[in-house]
């Protein structure tokens, strides 16, 4: 059975429009604290989540909104949670990094790598009492250096747990380029734990779907865990208001505030040799230039544009579908904002 690109595109578009609405609420100050969007990783989430059904569980990271929405959680409940309302998904007490849905067996955590043990536990319960059900863990490549995730993979391997470990690899762990803090090769690392690794283009939803299909069927039939390594980009960087992205978007506003104290410190007597200082300066400049050159800026990496290009073969149907999704999200937004609790 080939993937149905139309329905996958609908999932991705819903999520994109939903998260764009969230971004606006955040910029307007209606959402407090940090906000990590999944814009750019929709193909990975859609390709995997579309394969899940009743009894399947999800262990989500701090960027879990898209997965919950695509899994079927009411968008109004999510929005009202982010607005801190008592009738939100978690009574206004969880917030976007700590979203939980008991109904869909979905648990989030803001602790990097915590998805590993959670997915292993969900999978254990599935193996024991709901054979055929699976658990999915979504995490970034930065989490691959976290002990508890590595331990969970080993546990899943030796207990033959029905887990799909999904690594959404955007190459960045906040301001750090992951390759600079990661030894060896991730797929080889996972192989070393006895888990097969499948490498996919995380911007191609059909490819993700096919890989997820194989891995999930494998887990359902009792053949154990799989590691899905999907590369992607995050258009907003680590989170909304991310300084490296701000520098790129509005250099005149951002650079003076950074450059002046940096130069003063660079020139201060006492400290390292000039060579060491220059090496330090190079690290900062490299981070900024890597952001400037980075694939986040290239719309060719947008999973939605890529799917859309194919669907344009039927422009009338596409238009209808997009209008319908847009209407659905606007109506969820209106309904979430409609009634302010007293």
């Amino acid at each position: 059975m080939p993937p149905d690109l139309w329905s996958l595109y609908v999932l991705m578009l819903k999520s994109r429009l939903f998260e764009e609405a969230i971004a606006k609420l955040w910029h307007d100050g209606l959402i407090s604290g940090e906000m990590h969007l999944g814009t750019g990783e929709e193909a990975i989430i859609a390709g995997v989540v579309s394969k899940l059904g009743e009894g399947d569980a999800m262990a989500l990271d701090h960027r879990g909104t898209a997965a919950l929405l695509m899994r079927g959680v009411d968008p109004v409940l999510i929005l009202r949670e982010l607005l801190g309302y008592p009738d939100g998904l978690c009574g206004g007490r969880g917030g976007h990094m700590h979203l939980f849905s008991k109904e869909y067996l979905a648990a989030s955590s803001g602790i990097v790598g915590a998805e590993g043990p959670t997915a292993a536990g969900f999978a254990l319960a599935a193996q024991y009492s709901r054979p055929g059900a699976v658990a999915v863990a979504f995490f970034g490549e930065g989490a691959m250096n976290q002990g508890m995730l590595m331990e969970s993979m080993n546990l899943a391997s030796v207990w033959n747990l029905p887990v799909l470990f999904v690594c959404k690899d955007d190459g960045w762990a906040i301001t750090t380029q992951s390759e600079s803090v990661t030894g060896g090769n991730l797929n080889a690392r996972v192989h070393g734990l006895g888990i097969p690794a499948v490498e996919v283009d995380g911007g191609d939803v059909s490819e993700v779907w096919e890989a997820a299909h194989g891995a999930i069927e494998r887990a359902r039939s009792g053949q154990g865990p799989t590691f899905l390594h999907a590369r992607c980009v995050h258009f907003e960087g680590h989170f909304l208001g991310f300084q490296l992205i701000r520098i790129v978007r509005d250099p005149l506003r951002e650079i003076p505030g950074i450059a002046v104290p940096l130069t003063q410190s660079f020139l201060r007597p006492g400290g390292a040799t000039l060579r060491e200082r220059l090496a330090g300066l190079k690290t900062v400049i490299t981070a900024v230039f890597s952001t400037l050159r980075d694939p986040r800026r290239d719309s060719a990496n947008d999973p939605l544009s890529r799917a859309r290009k194919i669907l344009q073969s039927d422009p009338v149907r596409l238009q209808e579908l997009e209008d319908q999704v847009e209407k659905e999200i606007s109506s969820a937004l209106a309904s979430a904002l409609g009634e302010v609790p007293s």
Partner: protein
Amino acid sequence: MRTMFFTQAVDDALAQAMADDPRIILFGEDTPLLRRKLLVRFGPRRVRNAPISENAFLGAGVAAAMSGLRPVVEIYMVDFLGVCMDALLNHAAKVEAFSGGKWTAPVVVRAPCGGGYGDGGQHEQSLWGWLAHIPGLTVLVPSTPADAGGLMLAALQHDGPVIFLEHKLLSETWLEFLGSGARRTVQYDVPAEGAKGVVPQKWGPLPIGKAVHRRAGGDVTIISVGVGVHRALEAAQALESEGISAGVMDLRTVSPLDKKTVCEAVKKTGHLLVVDEDYEGFGLSGELSAVVLEAGISCKYARVCTQTTIPYARHLEDQILPNRERIYASVRKLRQ
């Protein structure tokens, strides 16, 4: 006279110490960019990046300290110490005792703490009581830029492990990084005196384990740390118009506790109110009552603390964290 923001003061004191002492190195996740001013002055050998592997790099910091370095290990938030508690609980804190007093681990663990900006219950905890519970750990919680810099210097000179907690509501950089993201549409109740203040021309170490009186008062003694000190000062100001004279003490160090200063003050007023942003049960607030009772002082006692998991919603969070209204009401009740 110079003034500084809170984190600017910590980094400035750290820079002064690094220039004097080549044994001091820094590392943690994103540390090179977060401490970029130190990076361009002291170079990448001393300001290092670490993978998201807290167990490894905090544990390594402890052992590096045992073998001659003075590492400052940065943990992104105190909440994340949960991931790597073993390095502190079973190693850093135990070295001195296990070696018969012959060996110590002079590591400084620097971590942002505290709430008030809507990041939810896994990212806004205080946890100083949890840490101070462990013998062998020194726990510092400064409330002003001058104290922050002076205590950082003291931490770097101390011969054992020190946890240095930086309240995010006082820190200009953390609050922007995690709270506003440069938005002008959000506002937080930042205590002005704590966020920016006069600092010495040259940093000198402040004594560890020494509390200070922030405000004199004869009717009741309010004891707190961090942002709680500022909330208590605001409440004390309001209580004055009611004819209640409330003194405010800033512990600055949670462990070791300045029992002497605490007991002297409570003995005089006979009324103790503890304001603690950390959890209420089994923590600093209960410890202070025990200290006073053990000294044979009888007093009326109350506490304003965080009793539950911190809720994400801003309006709920504001009620759960100690605020001036709760402090005000508690003092009035205590004086009835």
